[in-house]
């Protein structure tokens, strides 16, 4: 089983790099869906494992909710928002893509060194799964600050959440069931609210470029 988990954690990290290399908002949403499918797979494997070992169905239920929310509904919602607000295609990033990818590489190296010096997380060898998932969170943050459009920021936020979810699975075998469900519900509501706000921003400012809305200062 740990082979599958290792492979999935590396694939998740790769999906984050892919996301950073995407140019168009449509492809962000596709990559996000791919990442969510990987997470659903990971949760499914862990769920089946815990069902065999302890007869516990909690993680499988979480897996179903992940599929429903992250794989199906949120990408659908983002696509719908995108179709309504993005009538013209503009460049969406400040730095060019090679520099962003090199930045991501630095993030992974940084995470590796900072976690390898923290005793308590590693038992003997360095826990690469946790390194990968925390890199995923940091790349999500980096993605948020590297994009200008509101939808890009929502995707960045979702990648951060994905990273945290995976960290919870790898580091602690999942949070208590009720907490997991609560977190997923919060994310769902947050994305719905952010989607509505993107509409309003577009209505008032004529664009979803975040850099253009900075009237409030000081």
């Amino acid at each position: 089983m740990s082979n599958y988990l290792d492979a999935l954690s590396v694939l998740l990290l790769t999906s984050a790099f892919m996301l950073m290399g995407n140019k168009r908002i449509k492809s962000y949403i596709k990559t996000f869906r791919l990442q969510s499918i990987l997470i659903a797979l990971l949760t499914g494997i862990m769920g089946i494992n815990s069902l065999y070992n302890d007869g516990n169905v909690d993680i499988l239920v979480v897996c179903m909710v992940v599929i429903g929310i992250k794989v199906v509904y949120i990408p659908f919602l983002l696509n719908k928002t995108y179709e309504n607000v993005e009538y013209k295609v503009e460049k969406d990033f400040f730095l060019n893509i090679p520099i962003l990818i090199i930045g991501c590489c630095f993030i992974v190296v940084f995470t590796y060194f900072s976690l390898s010096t923290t005793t308590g997380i590693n038992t003997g060898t360095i826990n690469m799964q946790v390194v990968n998932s925390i890199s995923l969170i940091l790349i999500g943050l980096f993605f948020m600050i590297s994009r200008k459009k509101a939808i890009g920021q929502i995707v960045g936020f979702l990648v951060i959440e994905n990273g945290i979810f995976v960290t919870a699975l790898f580091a602690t075998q999942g949070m208590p069931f009720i907490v997991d469900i609560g977190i997923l519900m919060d994310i769902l509501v947050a994305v719905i609210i952010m989607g509505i706000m993107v509409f309003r921003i577009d209505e008032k400012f004529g664009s979803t470029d975040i850099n253009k809305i900075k009237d409030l200062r000081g």
Partner: protein
Amino acid sequence: MGFVLLAVPVIAVVLFFLLKKKQYQHAVSVAASIILMLIAALLTREVILFKTIEYSALGGIFYIDSLSIIVLDIVVIIGFMTSIYSIGYLEEELKHEKLDKGRLRIYYILMYAFIFTMLLALTVKNIGIMWVAIEATTLASAFLVGFYNGKDAIEAAWKYVIICSVGIAIALLGIIFLQFSSIGVLESSQFLDWTALFNNAQELKGPTLRLAFIFILIGFGTKAGLAPMHTWLPDAHSQAPSPISTLMSGVLLNGAMYGIIRIVAIINHSFGNSIFVGRIMITVGVLSVVTAAVFIFTQKDYKRLLAYSSIEHMGIIAIAIGFFTPLSIFGGLLHMINHSFTKSMLFLSSGNILQKYNTKEISKIKGMFKLLPVTATVFLLGLFAIGGTPPFSVFASELVVISAIFQENNFFVGGLLILLLAIIFTGIVLTMFKIFYGNDTPTETSPGEINIPGVCTIVGLLVIITTMGLYIPNELKGLIENAVQIIIGG
């Protein structure tokens, strides 16, 4: 009884959906807030008698102790004041067609959803569910911040929802590390259980716990408005309708600070000293006070000025918790109560001013004593109170905090804090006091108060803060002392 407390706001939300007439909605809102106050009073009595309230239902997640009842009482009392104030405020907005009946309903629904999430955050034992509830407070109040749908309001709401969601997500990472540090110590049914974590604190893994604290401080600190994560706060507080600014400043910030205090208690208990946590908390706190002192001087908008003052007071509470002596924690908790009431009074008064003058700019307001005699008096006294002038309550708690700092022989931080408080007081006087005098009042408005229920609430709050400055009831003192015991342990 405890579950009834959580059920009341939910029932109120359902009633707002069902009842169409605005009179009924006002009535439901006031009734719900009065019922909440009564239940909170009964729970407070129970806590005074039995120290903690726990039920075995639903896996025993319901838990109240002296620390949470203090914050909970602040929530219900300010909730009551706000719901009374809202009647007059919303009627006036309806008259000027700034909102219609449908939006009035949305206002009440979101307000009670917000109160529900706040109460949930304060009455659970599981830190994970507390996180879920605190994140839900952001979501419930996001549309309230952008309620007027103007350009500025949308910008503030967007900033609020993005910065707070990401910040709170970082706190979740910290909570995962906290759970990670307890693996092997606690059973899986006790994961993230606050009392279990606190009782077994010495066995938790230290390095992971440090990592957890830093992430949680950044996360909840974003929500509590500690510098340098405070950037959403002035925007959101100035753009939200005034009763909502009141709830955010008086209630929401305390909720986030409550989360930080819970975590600090676990970590200091685990390390046996407060050196690690203390250094970080004091740095962040001093930085917040400095930020507020700098920005208060340059403010042109009175609601933003009040928002920066909230950052200052959160900083003072963070410093008090950082020192972690019984006296300083007592001062910090007392300051939390006093700041909430005083700041609520100021934000509610600012709503009256905004409705009269239709502007948030300080330079356009003249002759307030003529146009709004009662509000002007309360606002003037409130500004003195928030600046830390005796006999008001903020002075009393600041005095306790500062004397606790000097008792620890930390003359540098104590002296710096006194200096900064003096600077902030000067800043408030310089920027704000020109609004009270002057004869050239705007011609289109006539003298007189608009919002009569609102005036009653602000006068009531003035009475509360003046009394609290002179005399603290023994029951309250006992509660705070118990809370200090809970935080320090033993």
